[in-house]
C-alpha cells in the first residue's frame, strides 16, 4: 500500500468506530485508539476525555517507529506488537497492515492473553476495512480537498493575523 494521504469516508469511519468500540467493550479497556503510522489519530473510544489523545497518538507512533528500527538492528522485520506494563494501567500496541496502529490502554487486572487474542481478532477485521480504504485512494486520483487558493489564503489570514 502506498499513498500520500488517507481519506476516511463517513461510512468507513463508522465501521472502524464500531469495530474498535466493540473491542474496547469486550476487554473493558480504558481507551482504544486507532492511529496512522505518522502519529495521527483516526478513531478513538472509551474514556477519551481523560487522555490527551493527540499527544498519546504521536508518542505511540514514535514508540512503534523506534521499536521497529530496533527490530531491524537485530535482523527482524518488525515487532508486530508491543506491551508496556504499569502499576495500574498497561498499554498494548498492535500493528495493522504495516500502516496503522491499534493502541489499547487497559487495566492491569485484565489478562494480557485476552487482550492479545481479542486484539488479533480485531486486527483482522480492521485490516479488511483498511485494504478497502487504501484501494479506494489508489484508484481515486481526484483532489483530496478541492479548495480555491483565495479561500486558503483568507483562511490562513484569519488565523495568523494576530500572530507575529
Amino acid at each position, binding site marked *: 500500500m502506498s499513498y500520500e494521504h488517507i*481519506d476516511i469516508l463517513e461510512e468507513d469511519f463508522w465501521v472502524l468506530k464500531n469495530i474498535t468500540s466493540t473491542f474496547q467493550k469486550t476487554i473493558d479497556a480504558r481507551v482504544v485508539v486507532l492511529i496512522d503510522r505518522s502519529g495521527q489519530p483516526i478513531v478513538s473510544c472509551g474514556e477519551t476525555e481523560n487522555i490527551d489523545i493527540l499527544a498519546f497518538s*504521536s508518542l505511540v507512533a514514535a514508540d512503534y517507529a523506534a521499536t521497529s528500527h530496533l527490530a531491524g538492528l537485530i535482523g527482524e522485520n518488525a515487532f508486530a506488537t508491543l506491551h508496556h506494563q504499569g502499576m495500574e494501567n498497561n498499554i498494548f500496541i498492535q500493528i495493522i497492515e504495516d500502516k496503522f496502529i491499534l493502541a489499547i490502554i487497559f487495566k492491569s487486572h485484565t489478562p494480557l492473553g485476552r487482550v492479545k487474542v481479542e486484539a488479533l481478532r480485531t486486527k483482522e477485521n480492521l485490516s479488511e476495512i483498511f485494504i478497502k480504504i487504501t484501494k479506494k485512494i489508489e484508484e481515486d486520483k481526484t483532489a483530496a480537498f478541492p479548495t480555491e487558493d483565495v479561500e486558503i489564503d483568507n483562511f490562513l489570514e*484569519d488565523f495568523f493575523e494576530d500572530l507575529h
Partner: protein
Amino acid sequence: MSVINYASREINCKIVYYGPGLGGKTTNLKKIYEKVNPSHRGELISLATDMDRTLFFDFVPVDLGTIRGFKTRFHLYTVPGQVYYNASRKLILRGVDGVIFVADSQIERLEDNIESIRNLIENLKEYNLKLGETPFVIQYNKRDLPNIAPMNQLEKLLNPLKVPSFEAVASEGIGVFSTLKEISKLVLKKLSQ
C-alpha cells in the same frame, strides 16, 4: 501523510522542522506554543536529554480553524539536529506533508546547514519523497547575531530550488509565524490540487 476524516470533518497534516543542531527548531515550536491561544493548540511534548537537547522530537498540535467545514489541525514536529541521531530523524519524517528547514545563519555553521539539507534529501528518499515535490520552506534563523552570512550567500548555498525563505530571530518570535504560515499555505494548496 494528511488524514482527511469526512465523518469527524477533520484534516490533519504533519509538518517537520528540520535543520542542524542548535539551529532553533525547538525554539520555533516553543514560540508557537507560547503565542498561540491555548484553545487552538495542544500540549508541547519534548523528548529531550537532561541537557535540554532534542533526543527524539518535540511535538505540538495546532488547530488553524475551519475551512469548508473541516477543522484543520497541523501536527508540528522537530527532529534532533545532532548528527548521530539520524535514525530518529528518519523516523520523524514518516508521513510528512511539509518541511521547514531552520538554517543557522552564522558563518561557522554554513557547512552544517549544507550537510543537514543533504541529510534531509537522503532521508526523504527512504519514503520515496523528493524535496522538490514536497512543500518546503527555509527559515534563516539567528539574524540578530553579529557573525552571520549575508542572505545572498545563504540563498545561493541552501536554496537552489528557490523555495520561499524567511529571515528570523526565533528566540524573539521574529519570522516564526510567517514561516509557519507559508508552509501551511503550500501544504493546503497541495491538498487542493
